[in-house]
Structures are given as C-alpha cells and as structure tokens.
C-alpha cells in the first residue's frame, strides 16, 4: 500500500508535468483531471480495503532520499490510512467535478500543472514517517496551493490573499520545525520511530505540543492563526477551494494528531484543555464571521474555520481523557473528531463545488446579487440543500452525527479528575452547540439568499443549470453525506482502527450497531439517523398522500400576500446583511466591534441613504496589523543605513572592531 501510494504520487507529479506541457488545453484538462480522479479513486479504494482489513500498519518503507543519515521513511498506519481515504475520496470526486468545471477555467495552464502536484503532496504528507519528508511534503502542499491561489493573479485581492497565505504557511512550518526539533532531540533522530522512543521532559513535550498546535493549527485555521484562510480559500478556483477547505485542513489536523497523539509521548491534561479551548473559540468566532460574510466562498471558508474548531474540541477532549487515564472514554471524542473531519470534507467539498457552479452560472459570488437559483439551477440547488443541511449539523445528515458523538463525550466529562476540566468541558460543549446553532442560522441565510427568493440581479436571473458531470460529482458527495448520516456505523468502523492505534481503545462492543449508535458503555443514550430519515420521509410522504387524497388537492398561483403590499422589486427582499442583523447585534458588537452607520440625507436631498457596516477581526486588529506595522516601521528606520557616506560606514567597521576587541579582552580576563 505504501509503495502504491508513492507510485500514485509519482504518477500525479508526472501528470503535473503533462499539465504544463500538454499542447492543447482541452486535452490537458481531460488528462490531468481524469488522471487525478483515477489515481485518487485507486488510492481511496486501497485505503478502504486496508481499513476494512483492520488497518494494520504497513512496514516502514525507506527510500534513499532526504537527509542522508535518516533517509526518507514512509509508513501507513490506521490513522494515515483513514486520512488517505478521506483525502482521496474527496479528491476523486472533486477531480470529476473539475472535468466539467475546468472547461470554464480562464487560465487552465495556471491550474493544471499544480493541481496533481497538490494532490501528490497531500498524499505524501500522510505517508511520511520522518520529519524531513513530512515537512517537505507539507511545504510542497503549501507551495502548490499557493500557486493555485494565484491562478487568477490579475486581481490584487487574490495576490494579497496568496501573500498572506504563504507567509502564514511559512510561519506554521517554522513552528513545526521547532516542534520536530524538540521531538528529535539534539542528536537529530528525525524518523518518527525514533521520536516515539524519546522521553521528553514534561516542559519540553508541552512546548512541542504548543508549537505543533501553532504549526498545524495555522494550516488548519485555528484562531487566531486563521486570517489567511478566508482570504486564500476563496481566491483559488472552486474545485481547488473545495480541496483546500475540505481536505487540506484535514491534512493539517492529521499533522496535529500525529504529533500530539503519536509522537509526543504520554499526554498531560492541560494539552487537551488548551486544544479544546482554542477549538471552542475557533468554532464560535469562525461561524460568527461566516454569518456576517457576503461572499459565498469566503463564507464557506469561515465555516471551515468553525468546523476545524469543532474537530479541535474533539481532539482536545480525547487528549484530556487519555491524560486522565480514562482511555475508554478517549476513543469516543477521538472518533467523533475524525468522523467530523470526514463529514466536513464531504459537505464542504460539496458546497464549494456548488458555489463554483453558482459563481460560474451567474458570474458573481456576492450573495446580495443572487437569489432564486432554485428555479434556474434546480439540481444544483437540491444537492446544495443537502450540503447545507449537513453542514448545519442537523439530523438526519452526517454533520449531526459527529457533533452528537462529541456531545456524548462532553457528557462523560464528570468522570474527569481535574475540577478545572469539569468546568471547561461543559463550557466547550456549550460553545459547540452555540456554533452549531449559529451554523444553522448561517446556512439558512446562505441557502435562503442564494437559492430561494427572487433574483437580485440580472445575472442571477439569467443563470442556467450547470454541467452534468459537475452535478453528478456533487450528487455523489450528497449521497455520501446521506449515507454517513443515516448509517454512520460503517464509517465509524473505518475510524476505529485509528482510535485503537492512537488512544488505545475503540468504542465499546456493539456500541456501533448498524442501526443505532450507542457510543458510551453502560449508558443507553443512542441515536439512529436511519430511523429519523425514514420517519421524515415516511411520515412526510404518508401525510402528503393522505392530505392529497382526503383534503383539497387544488393549487392556485397568485401574487404573494406580503401583508398586502407585494412589491415586484427584488431589492425589497430580505438581504443577506439584513438577515444577519439580529445576530450581528447580539454577538457582533462584542466579538468584532460591529458598528452600523446610517447616512440619512436631509429632507429634500435627492441622494440615496447609505448604510455602512464596519467589522474588526480581533486577530487582525491585535496580532497581525501591529506586526505588519512594526515591520514597516523597522524597515523605514533601518533604511536610513543605506544612505550614509563611506566615512559613516567605516565608522561602523571601526566601532565593530573596537567593540569586539573590548569584548574579547573582557571575556579573556
């Protein structure tokens, strides 16, 4: 399997070259995306088979590459295999989508060479079993996606996004370098096998965890290192956005899990508390941002931040239980987190694909210019509805299952020994539910404004349904969302080997029956997505049939009532920002210093009234802008050093010499 993965990665790299050098763009599209889809599907299938077979770790495969005295190690254990599956499942379907979407690409030669390389790099991250290979793949992933973000490079906003992205990626990598430096020790044993055997002092291990959290967290989008994400993810072409949001953040999560659960040794309880707290804050702030956003793809990117926060809450919980020696309880949040990762990769990819379809059909991503697309793009609208339902964390779809599992785990927290944790965990649970409820609001708003109502611009009114290939790939995502929501047991079964490998326990026997989930041993709390789905459809259909048979069947189309003042002007509809207004008032004034200003003309003036809204992202305000200002300030002041006379420069030399002489003389004494 490991060798197969390397072969597939090599094949993808070759596809990258093909994408760069293929003479005709149409052919290149088919070759690159078709090839990527096949490679990804093959890998996904292999990973699935391996996981069904128990997910035993493959032996370490060593290639004579990388650091000469370490070499490149590759190994797939249950954790890697699960993420390989997650990655390639989404990648295969997204590649399929791209077969249709890519045809509308403005500059295919800026996407085609990097797309397969990006896939290959992500796969290699998952397979790497030494720090060097891991980071090489990790950075290649960043660079490839940076180039993809630059695909539409003529817009200054995209260039800015790409810059912030790569700069943050560099920052994250440095943090990971530090973390690996600590884990490897001064002797430079960079293989993961070597790191596992090192015994770090609690302080060093804690430092490594914090650094890993910074490094992997910045890639995953944890607050306050999330600032690049809502800029970069939307800037890429939509299928790439789908991968960045749906998959790359998961690769980052994989990195975090790998370091925290596997390499760092026995955990301390505060690690989990830290990760959980960061996750909770991330979840709420992310979704609040999403609620206030008016660009579809940016909104989806912020929602990714929320979901990453949710996953982090789960991982933190798992760590807390593991550190407290309650390994059995650790499996549940761990599985919930990974399951949520899988679910998020499905519905976020689906939604980004749908957003791409909408943006292509209407030429805009601004929700305030959309509306009524359910009539013009009915199939897209249907799959997008499934996606919105899933991402809002509602039964009977998959987003709910993982959040429910996580809440079940929150309910086991009273068994924790630390009093502080007993308080933190429920609060994290509340934040989780708050985020989920806000997510529901957010996606009511998104779906309602984009697909429902009446078109808010001529472009939206003139939109047409998208390609069949795109629809089918989105439908496949929707079907997977439904399956994972209704019958989550098989999917959870795929995660269990990873849980056994990382936290040393799985779910209690029979906990994951095929119909009901009852994840906590000795507690009969259970849930069945299938029954809810069947009831929803069965009851609904039955009632509808009954009503149509017994009641009055006729239907009349008439102008809407609208309290007696129906207006034909679509601008009288509720807009995205008016929809968000109550929540903005309640939450935004605290979190983002949201301020609304209304500029009302005096009576008699003919100019229109204007409404302006200002928001402050605290991360920019308190962290990044001051940093940028400091660099500018320093550059400004040091720049003077360039414009000095030779005499001044000589004085510097002289001063340096004298200072060093004095220093040596002083030290020698």
């Amino acid at each position, binding site marked *: 399997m490991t060798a197969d993965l390397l072969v597939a990665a090599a094949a993808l790299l070759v596809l990258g070259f093909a994408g760069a050098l293929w003479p005709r763009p149409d052919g290149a599209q088919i070759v690159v995306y078709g090839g990527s889809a096949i490679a990804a599907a093959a890998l996904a299938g292999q990973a699935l088979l391996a996981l069904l077979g128990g997910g035993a770790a493959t032996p370490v495969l060593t290639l004579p590459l990388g650091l000469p005295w370490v070499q490149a190690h590759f190994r797939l254990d249950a954790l890697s295999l699960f993420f390989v599956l997650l990655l390639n499942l989404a990648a295969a379907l997204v590649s399929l989508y791209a077969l249709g979407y890519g045809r509308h690409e403005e500059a295919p030669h800026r996407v085609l060479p990097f797309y397969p390389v990006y896939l290959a790099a992500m796969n290699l991250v998952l397979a790497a079993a030494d720090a060097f290979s891991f980071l090489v793949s990790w950075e290649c992933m960043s660079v490839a996606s940076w180039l993809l973000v630059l695909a539409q490079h003529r817009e200054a906003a995209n260039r800015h996004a790409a810059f912030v992205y790569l700069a943050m990626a560099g920052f994250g990598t440095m943090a990971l370098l530090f973390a690996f430096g600590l884990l490897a020790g001064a002797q430079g044993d960079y293989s993961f096998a070597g790191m596992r055997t090192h015994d770090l002092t609690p302080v060093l291990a804690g430092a490594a965890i914090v650094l890993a959290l910074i490094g992997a967290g910045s890639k995953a989008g944890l607050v306050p290192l999330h600032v690049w994400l809502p800029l970069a993810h939307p800037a890429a072409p939509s299928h790439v956005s789908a991968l960045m949001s749906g998959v790359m953040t998961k690769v980052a999560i994989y990195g975090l899990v790998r370091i925290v659960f596997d390499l760092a040794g026995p955990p301390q309880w505060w690690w989990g508390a830290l990760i959980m707290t960061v996750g909770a804050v991330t979840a709420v702030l992310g979704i609040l941002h999403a609620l206030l956003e008016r660009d579809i793809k940016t909104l989806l990117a912020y929602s990714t931040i929320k979901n990453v926060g949710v996953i982090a809450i789960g991982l933190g919980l798992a760590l807390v239980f593991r550190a407290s020696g309650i390994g059995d309880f650790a499996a549940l949040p761990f599985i919930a987190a990974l399951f949520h990762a899988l679910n998020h990769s499905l519905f976020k990819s689906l939604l980004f694909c749908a957003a791409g379809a909408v943006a292509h059909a209407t030429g805009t991503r601004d929700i305030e210019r959309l509306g*009524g697309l*359910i*009539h013009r793009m009915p199939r897209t609208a249907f799959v997008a*509805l499934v996606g919105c*339902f899933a991402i*809002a*964390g509602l*039964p009977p779809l998959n987003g*709910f299952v993982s959040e*429910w599992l996580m809440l079940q785990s*929150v*309910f086991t927290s*009273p068994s924790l020994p630390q*009093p502080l944790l*007993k*308080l933190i965990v*429920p609060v994290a*649970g*509340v934040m989780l*539910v*708050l985020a989920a*409820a806000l997510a*529901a*609001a957010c996606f*009511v*708003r998104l779906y*309602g404004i984009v697909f*429902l*109502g009446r078109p808010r611009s001529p472009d939206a009114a003139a939109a047409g349904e998208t390609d069949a290939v795109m629809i089918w790939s989105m439908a496949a995502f929707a079907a997977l969302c439904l399956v994972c929501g209704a019958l989550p047991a098989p999917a959870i079964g795929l995660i269990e080997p990873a849980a056994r490998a990382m936290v040393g326990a799985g779910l209690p026997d029979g906990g994951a029956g095929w119909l*009901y989930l009852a994840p906590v041993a000795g*507690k009969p*709390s*259970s*849930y*069945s997505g299938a029954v*809810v789905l069947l*009831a*929803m459809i*069965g*009851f*609904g259909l039955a009632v*509808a049939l009954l*009503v149509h048979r017994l*009641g*009055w069947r006729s*239907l*009349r*189309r*008439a102008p*809407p*009532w*609208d309290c007696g003042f*129906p207006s034909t002007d679509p601008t*009288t509809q*509720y807009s995205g920002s*008016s929809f968000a207004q*109550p*929540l903005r*008032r*309640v939450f935004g004034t605290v979190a983002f210093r949201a301020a609304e200003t209304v500029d009302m003309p005096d009576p008699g003036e003919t100019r229109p009234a204007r409404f302006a809204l200002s928001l402050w992202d605290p991360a920019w305000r308190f962290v990044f802008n001051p940093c940028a200002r400091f660099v500018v300030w320093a550059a400004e002041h040091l720049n003077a050093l360039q414009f000095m006379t030779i005499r001044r420069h000589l004085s510097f030399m002289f001063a340096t010499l004298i200072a060093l002489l004095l220093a040596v003389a002083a030290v020698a004494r």
Partner: protein
Amino acid sequence: MNAVATQLAQIALVLALAPLLTGFVRVVKARLVGRRGPPLFQPYRDLARLLRKEAVLAPNASWLFRAAPYLVFALTWLTAALVPGATAMLALGPTADLIALIAILASARFLLALAGMDVGTAFGGIGSSREVMFAAIAEPAMLMVTFTVALVAGSTALPEIARFVIGGGVGLEVSLALALIALVMVAVAENGCIPVDNPATHLELTMVREAMVLEYSGRHLAMIEAAAMLRLLAHAALIACIFAPWGMALSADPAALIWGLASFVGKMAVAGVALAVFETSIAKMRVFRVAEFLGGALMLALIGTVVRLMSEGLG
C-alpha cells in the same frame, strides 16, 4: 412486541392530543382574561377547514416551499412520538436521546426558516432571521439543561432519565430546579409564546413565526399549524418526562399503561394551565430583549451545572 404496540399508540396519541392541548391553552387563556374563548375542539376544526381549502402559492414558490410543511410536520411528529409520555416503553425510543430530539426540532425549524425565505418577501425574511437568532441562544441553553439533567440522571436517554427520577434517585436538587426554569423559558421561546412571540398577533412587524409562514395557505398551513401544536405537546411532555415522570408506565402492564395515560393527560392539562397563566400575566418583549431572556436561561442552566459539579466535588 409490546414496545412496538405502545410506540404505535404513542404516535397516534400525540397526533390526537396535540390540538387538544392547544385548544385547552386557548380556552384557559380566554377564561383568565374574562372572555369565553373558542371551543375546546376549535383547533381540530381549524385544521380540517384548512385542509379543505385551496392552497394558494406565490408564482415563484419552489418545490421546497411545498415540501417543507410536510417535512416539518413529519419531524415534529417524530419528536413528539419519541418523548415518553404515558409510557417509557417505546420501540423507537433509542432513535434519539434528548440531544437528538432537540436537533430534530432544529431540523424542522431549519426547513421552516428556509421556506420563509422562498417567496422572496420582506416579512418571510424577518421571521426567518429572528427565528434562527432565538434558536442560536436557545439551543446552548437547552444543552446546558441537558447537561445538568445528565449529570444527575447519568444519561441523556429520556426513558432512562424518567426511570431514574421515578426510582427516587433524586432529592430536592437546586441544580434541577434551575434547569427546570431554564427549560421552561426555552420552551416558551421555542413555541412562540408570549413574551417571546405572539402567534395571535396581527401586527406583522412584531411577528416572528407568523411572519415566516405568512405566505402559506390551505393544507400547507394546516401542516404547519399541526406541527406547531405537536411541538408544544412535545415540549410539555419533555418537561413532564424529565421533572415529573411519576405515573409513567415503565412496564407493559395494562393497568400501568392506563394509569400512565391518565397521568400524562393530567400533566398536560397542568402544563396547559401553567402556560396560559404565564402568558396572560406577562407582556410581549421587544425582539432584542428576547436575546437577553434566552441568555438568562443559558445563565440559569450554567449556574445549575456549576452548582451540581460543586456539590459533586464536595461530596
């Protein structure tokens, strides 16, 4: 087999009882303010009348608009059918624990809010927007309540909680009392009762739920009305099941079942009176005060949890 039978009975029972509860509340409310009020069975007649009427749709209403009432009804019905009322012996009981029940109601609300935005009117948007804001605060409060209850009862499965409470495992708990208050506040908000919303209002700007369903008529409106009645019943049953499960049948013994049914109807009646008293004795709030109201519920529930954790820590 017994469980299947009781489950089927429960499914039918809630459907039958829901309009009655609503009618009862209306009657008591009218009496409290000195009016005669509508007949007790008026809600049944209303529903039947609506079902017989022609449905009018806006020209640009989509399939979602037409499907939503049925789905909302189905989900709400399911919820009501899963809350142990007369008996805890329900075949589908494991389908959803307390958290899942809340989430199923949230699904219904999600669909309804979408439907409110479908026609593209300003009022539909107002309703949806306010509804989801309330939910965003109510659901965390609900979770906190659940947490406190789960702390006490050791489970989130309703039959289990009921069994535990009946079994006398609980003394007089401050935390549970706080949770009860919080849960009532949430239920009041969720069901669009005064002071949060007024279903009987005709002033559109103050509407919340009514604004959402403003464009519905005929059988669609009937479904939505029925769903609202079922939701009220479900909430009342939920509160009863957690805080006053006494009388509920825990076995398939026919006598117990009959006693369970009687006590359930009695509890519903008490709940109806309480709600009516509450509604008539308070004025409706401004929309943004509702956030504070629900925030208060969240705080109460949180305090309840902390109290419970502290008492555990001490004990």
